[in-house]
């Protein structure tokens, strides 16, 4: 067995939906859309394809840029870029609850990994963000960890996207009449869209094609989520 096999096992654990970071508590605005009848089960797959094209590519981009920070030798530059990256992503997330959810998951993820393996660069990244009162987003934390563990870059981005979509589908299973088999089929069929979203971020251009994201209906669902009278999810 090779070192690569060990890294694959690490990635499988980190991208597992059972990882205790609290991802199951968030719907990122979907609960509002479902509660108001705007997202029926028969439109879920189409919705997820478009969501992956827009938000998936954006988060994949930030995940990949964070991954590549590990290639920089100067620790000061790394931390400056790390903070700038997370600040940029916070600014791109208009819905407070969804932004806070992403930051909560990112911070917990980084802390959890540090509890599994002491990596000085990850500790610095956590401390720098806490000191500067800057969010640590889930996708950037995932990318930074992937790079620090020397996991394969493309696989890291894809694993992040896969677990994100799996989390949304899982949320939908609690919100709408979506069976386990149907959920598995959707997750299986959406993989080419994940590949496309990950590929679009390969140039790591924060002003490039993957940086554009138009999901106003989902954003508005997230912004209106605090006003729901009955809520299963925190976002």
């Amino acid at each position, binding site marked *: 067995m090779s070192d690569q096999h060990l890294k694959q096992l690490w990635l499988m654990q980190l991208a597992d939906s059972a990882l205790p970071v609290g991802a199951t508590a968030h719907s990122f605005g979907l609960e509002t*859309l479902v509660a108001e009848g705007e997202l029926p089960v028969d439109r879920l797959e189409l*919705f997820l394809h*478009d969501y992956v094209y827009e938000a998936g590519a954006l988060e994949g981009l930030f995940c990949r840029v964070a991954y590549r920070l590990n290639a920089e030798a100067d620790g000061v530059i790394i931390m400056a870029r790390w903070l700038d990256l997370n600040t940029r992503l916070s*600014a*791109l997330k208009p819905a407070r609850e969804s932004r806070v959810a992403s930051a909560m998951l990112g911070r917990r993820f980084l802390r959890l990994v540090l509890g599994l393996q002491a990596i000085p660069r990850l500790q610095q990244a956590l401390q720098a963000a806490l000191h500067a009162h800057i969010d640590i987003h889930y996708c950037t934390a995932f990318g930074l960890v992937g790079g620090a563990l020397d996991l394969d870059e493309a696989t890291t981005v894809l694993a992040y996207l896969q677990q994100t979509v799996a989390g949304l589908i899982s949320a939908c299973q609690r919100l709408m009449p979506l069976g386990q088999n149907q959920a598995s089929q959707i997750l299986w069929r959406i993989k080419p869209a994940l590949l496309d979203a990950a590929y679009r971020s390969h140039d790591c251009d924060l002003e490039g094609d993957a940086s554009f994201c138009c999901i106003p209906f989902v*954003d508005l669902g997230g912004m209106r989520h605090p006003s729901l009278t009955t809520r299963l999810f925190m976002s």
Partner: protein
Amino acid sequence: MLHEQPLKNERSKGLLRLKFDHRVPINTVLTVCQQQPPLQVVRAFPLHDGAALVHLHNISGGVLGGDQLQLSVDVGAHARVQLTSTGATRLYRSRNGLAAAIQTTEITVGSNGLLEYLPDPLIPFAGAHYRQATRIELAAGAGLFWWDILAPGRAARGEQFEYELLQITLDIVASGQLIASERVKLQPSLRPLASPGRFGPYRYVASFYICRVDWVAMRWLALEEQLNQLARNLTRPGDVLWGISTLPAHGLVVRAMSSNGRALLPGLLTFWRAAKLALYGQEAIPPRKVY
């Protein structure tokens, strides 16, 4: 960052540079004005609270394919400015071979200055090809009320999402921190906007950024809740949805989606009035035009 492309046929390179200064005791004056058609202002009108009101004109009646338009506004320390348009901004069809029309806007608001930017909707005609980039920098204590409304097209003639390209970027920086950023690229023929992942059943979208740098952080959450109460009252599912969220710092954003354009401007005026009162203890003064 927008990259200028060579034009096959030369089009307008409009330029408008405005600078506003505060004069004791309370008046704001327009001190520098450089303009090149089709962008133009006629004069600044004094408002009774000391602010200067300026109407932004595009004398060609709209944005033509290949136009390159630049707007620069510098609001000095303690100055108060209200900018509005004289009507909807029409984005005309681009002729084949012409580069996309480009509008770049750079705004700075000095310490304790205030800018209220209240334009009419953006209407992209069928075949329009348009890129817009806006950057707003707010100094300590600066305030901003900034809305924009995007129509699906010439709705009265049944035109919806028939434009070729609409690319809109917006960055708001407050005391050196990026607090809001939009990166939107709409190409309806490639990616349908009526999808539930994009516009859903709605056709119009509006954003309203409300900022005051260094206002106490906890009060933004209270203002979010106050405005959310208004949003709940104004929301009519299937017709218009309103939502409010605080930004990472120094402000909040009001977002609306609507199946028609009629509900948006009155709603924006409602939020403006409430937020102006909360942030400045003053009444909002609507521009002299019919809403």
